[in-house]
């Protein structure tokens, strides 16, 4: 065994695989379209970027056409570089640059309309806050699916969390007790998934769909019951946490250091889940169980027990995310108030390729585009509101098709494990 039979990797830097070529053409054409449109359609407009929270008077007027042209050139160049053939390791970066340039160009264009101002701080702070439910829901999904259990019931866990959060907060008069209640409710509802998936080996997608239905029926029913009693469904709000002088830093301050608890917990959880998954014994075993349960089993890991508790723990995250809808927004519970965002969280999980950092990116894309759409609509954009509301979905579609490509789920995701199976 002295001879290492591993073929020496012959890295090829000189040639571009075919898919690079295709992507390159798409980006180059997009870039050219931006340039053409800018030349043909953009008149003498300016785009105003303002800092409304810290530097109330500061604003920056940029000549729209010039900026858009530059961005168009960047996108075209990135595309051309891909066509010409670029080293493998630059491929992702060039692609991201091209997409970012096109998106920024559109943004500059959109905000060049009369009367619209890009209020950097409000928009970014709002976007970060809006991405929170996706982060929690998708992280819950990541923990479940990394362990090999498909969790399509995030919507239901959101509802349970949203409902119970308010209820417990009202009963105890303490918002933190409410948050804990939300987490436990989320966890209780995933416990059913955990049990059915590990012990009874039921099709996990079916269980997820059923959980959503159960949660909807249960919370709606309980909501009607609670309405009869007074003071069980009053709004509670989590305080905004301001980090003293840090909060006064322009742009960064209002965006990062003057947010509600949810934002901090969300960002911390991304880091924590990432660390747990990739740097701890639990994470190693969890990923092994989701990827190749028989391998984990053969090394003495109790697959179904780990899956069970992971799914139960994931429910805590989704439940907390559910509390965002009520406690996070200072709202009382209302029937079906999660409005399908649990499914979006599911998509964010896949966009993020089952990785907490990817989830953060996906959630931010969603939060940002949602915020932009609302801001433009409020500013009286000439684009019909419905199309603006489509923005996050359309952007996700483009990002998924253009950048993310094939996302590979953990190999054993959704496959029940029977010890003794080969």
């Amino acid at each position, binding site marked *: 065994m002295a001879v290492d039979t591993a073929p020496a990797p012959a890295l090829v830097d000189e040639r571009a695989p075919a898919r690079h070529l295709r992507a390159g053409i798409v980006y180059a054409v997009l870039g050219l379209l931006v340039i053409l449109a800018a030349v043909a359609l953009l008149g003498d407009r300016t785009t105003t970027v303002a800092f409304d929270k810290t530097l109330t008077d500061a604003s920056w007027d940029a000549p729209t056409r010039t900026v858009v042209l530059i961005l168009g050139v960047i996108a075209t160049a990135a595309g051309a570089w891909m066509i010409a053939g670029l080293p493998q390791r630059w491929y992702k970066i060039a692609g991201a640059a091209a997409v970012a340039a096109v998106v920024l160009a559109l943004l500059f264009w959109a905000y060049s309309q009369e009367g619209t101002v890009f209020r950097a701080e409000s928009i970014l702070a709002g976007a970060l806050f809006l991405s929170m439910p996706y982060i929690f829901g998708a992280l819950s999904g990541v923990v479940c699916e990394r362990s090999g259990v498909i969790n399509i019931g995030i919507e239901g866990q959101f509802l349970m969390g949203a409902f119970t959060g308010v209820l417990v907060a009202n009963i105890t008069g303490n918002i933190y007790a409410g948050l804990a209640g939300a987490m436990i409710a989320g966890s209780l509802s995933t416990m059913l998934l955990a049990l059915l998936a590990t012990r009874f080996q039921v099709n996990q*997608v079916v269980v997820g769909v059923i959980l959503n*239905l159960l949660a909807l*029926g249960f919370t709606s029913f309980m909501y009607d019951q609670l309405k009869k009693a007074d003071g069980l469904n009053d709004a509670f709000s989590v305080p905004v946490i301001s980090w003293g002088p840090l909060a006064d830093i322009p742009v960064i301050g209002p965006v990062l250091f003057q947010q509600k608890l949810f934002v901090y917990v969300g960002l911390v959880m991304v880091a924590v889940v990432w660390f747990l998954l990739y740097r701890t014994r639990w994470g190693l075993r969890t990923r092994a169980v989701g990827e190749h349960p028989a391998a984990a089993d053969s090394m003495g890991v109790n697959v179904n027990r780990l899956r069970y508790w992971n799914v139960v723990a994931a429910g805590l995250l989704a439940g907390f995310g559910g509390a965002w809808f009520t406690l996070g927004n200072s709202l009382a519970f209302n029937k079906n108030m999660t409005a399908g965002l649990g499914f979006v969280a599911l*998509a964010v999980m896949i966009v993020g390729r089952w990785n907490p950092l990817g989830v953060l990116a996906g959630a931010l894309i969603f939060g940002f585009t949602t915020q932009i759409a609302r801001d433009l609509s409020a500013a009286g954009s000439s684009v019909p509101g419905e199309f603006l509301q489509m923005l996050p979905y359309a952007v996700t579609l483009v990002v998924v098709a253009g950048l993310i490509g094939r996302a590979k789920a953990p190999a054993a995701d959704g496959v029940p494990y029977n010890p003794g199976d080969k």
Partner: protein
Amino acid sequence: MSDSTATTEAPAEPPAPDTEGSEPKPNFMRLFGGYLTEANSVMVTIYSLLLAFLIGAILLIVSDEFTRSTFSYFFSRPQDAWYASRDLVVESYTSLFEGAILNFNTLEAYRAGDAEFGNLLRPLSETLTYATPLIFTGLAVGLAFRAGLFNIGAQGQLIFGMMGALIVGFSLDLPIWLHLPLAIIAGAVAGGALGAVPGVLKATTGAHEVISSIMLNNIAALFLVWALGTAFLHSETKSDLVSKPVDDSATLPTLLSSLNPSLRVNLALIIGFAVAALVWWLLSKSTFGFRIRAVGFNEHAAATAGMRIGSTYTTTMTAAGALAGLGGAALALGVSSGGITTNTALDYGFSGITVALLGRANPGGIVASALLFGALKAGALSAQPDVPVDISTLLQATIVLFIAAPALVKAILHLRTPRGGLVTLEAKGW
């Protein structure tokens, strides 16, 4: 997510002639009793329904203020609690039954000659009416399942189908034999067009069909809101957000309205049955179905055998979209022919997922579970407010839960494992 066929959990036991021969001659009662205590698929379904109704009964009792109050003095007068509960449960389930299948009051009236025969059929007609779109969306999800695709986008496809059928339905001036088929086809085409998108994206870029179809659902719903506001679609006579009505020549004829005008069930039901039969034929008899099933079970082996995976994804998703689109056409040209609104589609597409899974992705099973869902919906609608709508939702969820989890039913009731093994929904990943 590639498989949802019935599989046997334990290896099939080969015939064991020596034991069989020595057994005493089986008497019918023994066999029947054995059948009843065995977790075979018929009994599991029956027990699932019974268990679900039991849980539903508990929910009903808990939710009813008055009945609940009788429990507060349970120990002094337990009979109160018992009678109140019994009456509540019996009445609630009776009214669900009456709304879905047969109304006893009407039956009495009919016997007495006060009601026509048509009145008697109304609950059934409602059940079938609500089942109709579910047959289509269930097939849309089920067909994709067979190709290993999770079509979570039937909702959007149904919405597009609705719009396609509607536009042809009101904008053309044609004789009924041409107009109606064209409008129906337009629904299928529009739904198919939307369904094709996740298929094409998956085939070309590998984009996960679950993401793209969730996104398209939202886009389609918003698109409908916008479209309904445009002058082209918006009703000329009503200011509400409602579309123009389709022409009479594009309206699906009702089947039984000659008996009674309130019998709404229309031709779409028959089309649904026919399409289900067609899908069954396609899957089990055609080369296309052969390919779909092969790709769904094992895309690697299929590719090695020369089947084109990408184009199978694309065509299957297009076909699935077309099926959901037909569901949309059934709505737009049928019960909603007076004009569609933003929530005409309800959650027919999402329910289609449950219907398909419950029907084990087999056309026959899908039709059966669509009928069950239709009955639940019709019953729930007519039983309110005595049975709160949310209780009906819970009841539905519990029924599906038990049917989907035979192992659970078996464990709760301590049933025996049947000979061929437990029939269960095979769970597979994305």
